[in-house]
Structures are given as C-alpha cells and as structure tokens.
C-alpha cells in the first residue's frame, strides 16, 4: 500500500491557493524600503497547492483522527466530555474572536465583564478568593501557583526550598517544582491508595514550601484525610497546592478551598468542556486564598461600579507568564458552559461522572485486576497484570486492540505506582449504552487474550496504519520533511 501523501508531496510549481489583492499604493523599488542584504535569498519550500488540494488534504487527514465527536474516549485524567457546539459558536462571535488585545478597556467592556463574571463563578466553585486567567494550560497554572507561593514566602522573609509531591502525581508537578527552583521530595502512597500521612510527616519541615496534591488523586480516589493533611501542612508553615485536573469529580460536592487548599489550578479544557484541539489550547485558571492574592500575575480583572478594567499596578505580583491576558476564547467557552449547566447541573455533572466510573469499575472487575477496589470518584485504575502473567499480553496490546473496536484507549502505564495500569474515565456525558458497549469490548479482548493472544499482541489491525515503531522514531529522529 502507498504511503498517505504529505502536503509537500502534492506540490506543483506555480500552483496557488490564495486570492490576495494587488498593491494599491505606489510601487517603489523594494531596495528603497529595505536594504538588499535584508531580503530573503531562497524562498521557503512551502507546498504549492490549490485551495481544493488543501481542503481535501486536511479533510482526509481529519478522517485519520479519532475524536470525542466520533466515539468514546475514556482517557483517564483527561476528562474527555462532550464539547457543546453552542459554545463554539459563541467563541467565534466577531465581538470576541476579532477583538484586539490592545483595544482600550472602555471599548472592551463586554470581554472584561465576561472575565469578571467567569471569575466570580470559579471562585465560588473553588471556595477561593481570587483568580488569574493568564495560564494557558494546567502545567502553566502549576507554574503560576508555585511562583505565587514562592513570592509569598519571600515577602515574609522565609526561604523554603522544597516541594513535596506524592508518588502518584502527574509528571507536571515535579517538573514545575524544578522550573521554580525547588527541590522535589516524593512521598509514597499508602495501601488504600491515599497519601501516606506518616510518610508525609517525616518530610514536612521548615524547608517545605508546598505540598502538591491531586484530589481525587490519580488512582481516582478521594484523599480521605485531606483535612488532616492540610492541618499538618499548615502547621509546618507550608502551603497546600491542588492540581485540579480531577475537579470534575467534586464540583458542587466539596470545594478545594474548604478542604484546606491555598491555591489550585483548574483545567477548563477538562472540567469546563472546552475542546482539547488535539493537544491544546487549554486554559488553566488559578484560584487562590486571599493571602496569596497580592502575588497573582498581572494584569488582574477588577470591577469598579459598573466598569471593568485591567489592574497592572500590583507591586507584589510575580509578573507575567505570557503576553496579554489568557486563552480568552477558551474562557468564553467555559463561561458559556457554566451558564448552560448552572449550579444544579454542575453537581449533577460530578454525581454522574462518579456514577459512570463506578459502574464501569464494577462491571470490569470480573475480568481485570482492580488494585484499589473500592468506591472511586470520576475514574479508576485497572491493571493488565492478569492478562500479562496468564497470556503474555501487555496493557499496551490491550489498548491497541481497543482501537480496533472503535474506542479510544484509556490512559495506560499511569499512574506509575500501578503495574500495567489502565486508567479509565468515562465522564458524565456518555450514555449507559456506550458504557455497556465499552465493557463488551473489554470483555471480548480478555477472551481474545486467552484464545488468540497473537491477535492482541499485533493489534491494531483495522486502523489507518498498523502499530508504529516508536524506537526507530527516537533512535533516528526524522522531525521534518526535506525537499528531494
């Protein structure tokens, strides 16, 4: 079979896909405008294709992509819920999409009001006192959170050098701590899948700046002792950071601010349904308690009477982490979502996300090992160890075989503390019939593991390409097409 062509391989010299105007100003020689040596010598080898070529190429590529719009996407920790079409339409209104970031504030009142109102809603959901919209993603929010904590301690003349993370944490937590110059201390989880309180206390001291927790944690389990953890952390003078990736499990049920967290980020592209776009853009709003507010990045949206403005005059601010104000279009989508769903709806979101996850957990338990088999929150972690020992089939094989059944695979090999981990998050927007179809596929694959393991080991069989050689890709990197 022929390789699927690159856009460059369809290029024909002289072909065009645009309709630009002719110059309507006097045609002075270019050399009078810029020095000859500043001009480009060799044109870029971009494809020369017609508009129809481009439309067909990217439409065909889209057919080689799996999406929520196409099917079930139980990717744990990623909250792949339905992304409402209404919110796309709202985000594309010219009043938002065509608004220049340096439009004077008095002419951008609608945008600023939207941010203010969104901030009010998110503060209430989080049980926090202030927000910043600047972070472009969850990890960017973590960066802001730790910078804020660092500035807070600096303002008190305290030099704290360590950040504690559980062994079940997302990789972004330790990576962020390192970016802010902190030493990372990893603490183990206990037999119930919670953070080990005794181990935590061993490490907590006057060097500790923050403890970064995910709640529910990456095993999908609520940190049952979160109030006691917060007590100990605060007694040691440290701050509580919440990685809000799993906020979907608790909106309206319990608030991070009430759990004792001082700062958190929320992934609007998870809990608040903004589309993930094949890897981004996201939006990682950070919410803090009042003692951390002076340190938030500039600018902050403020209301004065019925006017809204951007406040840049914040002498204790950590500065900026990006240009302008945040991933605004995603903030519009998230606000549209909040207004559509409302208070009761959000609570129902958490309840159904948890209901659906527990349903899948119980239905899959006869076939797959569930290392922490108790009531879970919005997701749970299964394991492929049984299939690996019994049939010599790995979790990776099972994940690839699921693709043949028309499902995206769960998150695999994470969290790192579960062998052959299969992390499943169904979300509240999937129907019982979809959940049952997924169970049927998982059960069928378990049977295949026993009856025809080779079929599973060599999966996928029905996809655009077969299993890809990742080792080769890393060993001799080919990161761009080169003209012949």
């Amino acid at each position: 079979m022929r390789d699927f062509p690159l856009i460059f391989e369809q290029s024909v010299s002289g072909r065009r896909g645009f309709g630009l105007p002719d110059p309507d100003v006097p045609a002075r020689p270019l050399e009078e405008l810029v020095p000859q040596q500043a001009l480009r010598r060799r044109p870029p080898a971009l494809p020369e294709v017609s508009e129809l070529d481009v439309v067909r190429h990217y439409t065909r590529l889209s057919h080689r992509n799996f999406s929520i719009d196409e099917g079930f996407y139980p990717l744990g920790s990623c909250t792949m819920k339905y992304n409402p079409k209404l919110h796309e339409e709202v985000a594309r209104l010219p009043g938002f999409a065509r608004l220049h970031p340096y439009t004077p504030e008095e002419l951008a009142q609608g945008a600023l009001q939207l941010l203010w109102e969104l901030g009010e809603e998110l503060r209430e959901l989080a049980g926090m006192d202030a927000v910043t919209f600047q972070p472009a993603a969850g990890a960017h929010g973590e960066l802001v959170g730790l910078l804020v904590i660092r500035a807070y301690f600096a303002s008190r003349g305290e030099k704290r050098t360590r950040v504690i993370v559980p062994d079940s944490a997302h990789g972004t937590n330790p990576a962020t701590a390192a970016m802010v110059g902190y030493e990372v201390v990893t603490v183990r989880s206990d037999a119930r899948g919670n953070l080990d309180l005794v181990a935590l206390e061993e490490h907590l001291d006057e060097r500790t700046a923050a403890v970064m927790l995910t709640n529910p944690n990456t095993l999908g389990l609520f940190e049952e002792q979160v109030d006691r953890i917060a007590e100990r952390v605060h007694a040691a003078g440290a701050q509580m950071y919440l990685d809000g990736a799993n906020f979907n499990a608790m909106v309206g049920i319990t608030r991070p601010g009430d759990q004792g967290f001082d700062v958190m980020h929320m992934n609007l592209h998870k809990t608040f349904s903004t589309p993930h776009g094949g890897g981004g853009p996201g939006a990682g709003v950070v919410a803090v308690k009042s003692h951390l507010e002076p340190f938030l990045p500039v600018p902050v949206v403020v209301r004065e009477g019925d006017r809204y403005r951007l406040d840049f005059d914040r002498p204790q601010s950590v500065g900026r982490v990006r240009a302008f104000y945040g991933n605004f279009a995603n903030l519009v989508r998230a606000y549209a979502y909040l207004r559509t769903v409302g208070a009761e709806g959000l609570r129902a979101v958490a309840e159904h996300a948890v209901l659906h996850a527990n349903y899948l957990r119980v239905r899959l338990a006869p076939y797959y090992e569930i290392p922490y088999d108790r009531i879970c929150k919005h997701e749970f972690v299964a394991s492929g160890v049984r299939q690996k020992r019994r049939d010599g089939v790995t979790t990776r094989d099972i994940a690839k075989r699921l693709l043949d059944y028309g499902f995206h695979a769960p998150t695999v090999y994470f969290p790192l503390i579960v062998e052959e981990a299969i992390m499943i998050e169904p979300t509240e927007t999937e129907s019982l019939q979809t959940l049952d179809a997924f169970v049927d596929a998982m059960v069928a694959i378990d049977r295949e593991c026993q009856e025809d393991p080779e079929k599973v080991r060599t999966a996928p069989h029905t996809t655009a390409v077969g299993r890809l050689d990742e080792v080769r890709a890393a060993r001799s990197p080919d990161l761009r097409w080169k003209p012949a």
Partner: protein
Amino acid sequence: MRYIPTTPEEREYMLRLIGVRSVEDLFADVPDSVRLRRPLRLRPALSDPEVLRYLGALANRNAHADRLTCFVGAGAYDHFVPPAVWQLVGRGEFLTAYTPYQAEIMQGELQATYEYQTMVCELLGMEVANASMYDGASALGEAAVMARDLTKRDRVVVSRAVHPEYRQVLRTYTEPLGIRVVELPHEAGTTPPGPRELNGRTAAVVVQHPNFFGCLEDVRGWAEAAHGAGALLVVACSDPLAFGLLEPPGALGADIIAAEGQPLGNPLNFGGPYLGIIATRQEFVRRMPGRLVGATVDRHGRRGFVLTLQTREQHIRREKATSNICTNEALNALAAAVYLSLLGPQGVRQVAELCLRKADYLKSRVAELPGFQLPFRAPTFHEFVVRTPRPAEALVRALIREGFLAGLPLGRFYRGMRDCLLVAVTETRTREEMDRFVEALERACRRGRQAVGGRVL
C-alpha cells in the same frame, strides 16, 4: 440535565449494580467537614438561546476589528485569515481530539503537526521546530532556560526593543532559576551589536527581529557578537510572516527562535489562544521543551508518525524534564499549517510585500503631517513608531470617534515615549482606509490645537 444522557431509571439500575443505595453513598469517602452543604451560589442557568443572547450581548459591547479599522499590532496582527483555515481546523475530528497518545488512530493530527514543523523550519530557516508552545512570550522564556542549560551559563542579555511583555515573561521564567537578565538600551529604535555587555557568563543574547518598534535588527552582527563570546543568539519575533520577504533568522546565525504564530491564520481572540513557536538547530534538539512529532514506519513498513524524543518531557523525566509543558496549542499550530499551505512560497512573499509597501505608504503620509515625526531612521517592516503632536493616549481616544484603532501608545511601556504611537499595517488595510486615517489624524490634531487655544496638547 443538559449534556447528561442518563435517565433516572438508568441511574437506579447502575446504583443497584454497584451495590449502593444512593448517589450520596458514592461520596461517603469525602469527610463531612469538607462537604458543601448548600447549593452553589452561581448565576442562574440559561437555556441555549438565552446563552447565545446573553454572551452575544457581551460580544456586542466590544469594539472589534470589523468595527474599528485596526492600525494596532504590537504582537497581535489583523491579517486576513482565509475561511478555509477555520472551516478545516474547526472540524470536530481535529477540535475534539486529545493529545495524539494513540498514534494509530491519530495520524491526522500527527501528520499535520509534522507538516507544521516542516513549514515553520522553512519559514524561519531553521533545522527543527517543536509541535508548539503557549505563545511567543512564554516560548521566549523557555528559550532562555534552554540557552542556560546548553551553555551552563547564567546571564541573559536582552534588548529593550524586545516586546515589553515578552521581557516581563522572560524575567518570570528566569528569575527563580538564578538567571540574571541584563537589558540593553535601544539606540534610535535598534540595538547595535556590540560585545560590551557580553562576557564569559552570558548564556544568550536576545533580540527581536523585526523588533517591537517594527525596525529591522542586525541579526547577523548579533550572531557574530554572541558566538564570539561563546553565547547563543536567541531571536524573538512577533510576526513570522516578515520572513516571507526578509532573510530568516535561521539563515543569519540565530541558535534559537521564539516566535508568535498568531499571525499565521489565528484570530485576534483578545490575546489568546495564540501559538508559541520555538525552533532551533538539530544539535540542540534534546534540550528542546515541548512535544515533537517524528516520522517512522508501521509493522507493514508504511510511513506513519508518532510523538518522539519524549524522554525530554515531564511525563517521563519528571523533575529532570526540559520543561513542565504538557498541553500546548496544537489546534493553532494546525491553523498555521493550513494557512501556510494555502499561501505557499508566493503567498507568504506577497503578504509580506503588501504589508511592507502599505506600511511604508502610511509612514510617509503620516510623516508629512504637521507636528508628526518619525523618531527612528532604521528600515521597518509592517510597523513603525511615530511621534505625535498630542499625547498618544489622547490621540487614540480621538481617533476612536473617527472609527480607527490608531495604534499602541508607547508611554505605557517606555518612559519618555508618551508622545509616541506604534502603528501597524497589514495586507488587509486599503489605501482608502489609510488616506482617511491620515485625514482623521490631521483633524484630531487641529481640533486638539483649537481646544486649548492654539497650544498643542
């Protein structure tokens, strides 16, 4: 409930199967002390038409670029975006996909990213580009950290003609790591290369090209100066379309390029989402932040694409990763790929040339107006600084009444530049708009003179 398909009967069935009596039992592990025992205090939920009406009304209160003729740029540009771009990018298959972790069913996203990486390399004259960063400013912050890691040195020298917000971000990213940032003054709008501030501790020199004032910098000269001191040259850029016409930084000796990709097919969006571009030399690829897509083969020998060199990244390397970045701006990178495919080599040159010629026309016309001056002599691309006879803030306000967003008053970023306006012209502006703009500027200054008895305010 909106977007929850589960019926009450189905809910009861699931609860029974789980072996609990109520949904409340599913939350028994949440300590009572942290439970929220009251309804959330949120604004009331709206029906779908009400959401559209309410947010539509908010959108209507904004003076967007179809209402005011836009002469402001400064890091966000009103280029023409062919409708094909977002009709393709907005397809649910791209829009509602996650990061391409399961490569076999994500060849669309992965191949498009590989094509994007190639196009960015071609446009910037560089060897390798990643799958995207958050925006140009944060890409610059990451580039500085990368330079520190590559050189094992701890100082970054940055031109004051780099976008002020980019410089703020640069400080935020470098300060916690003990990297010292030294600013170089601009002289008449550019930063003349000189080894004065460079020494054995300099990890990188950062210049923007074309710079914040729209002026062209001597990138080649800076490359020589930086390399002479054993440092790297980092070039920032807020509109890569300049390199449809200008020699790209990669060909002029830049080691790392941190650019804003918004101008490549992405909407203004009140500042985001935009597209962070980072590109570098092949030899530095293992210190690069962010995702990379590489070509490989499947088990039948067919070409395919995967995320690769992931041992640089946080999910593998944790605290030793090159960056904490995970989610990036994939959809905006896809838009850039579609945009650059539509334009091709002739298109990017034509857009750049139109921008340059139109900006030059407006620059000459404004310079002829009484009381207006061009403070900088250096050649410019599509943006220029003009000294105005009234404070620039007041002039911008006056021009709003005439239907123009006149530019960015520079007083907010530079002391002593309260009477300076940064004006941008893209291919979407017409001669007729520019002529009316010039007349409006003249009127606004005449009125300003009359208003205060002949004194220019």
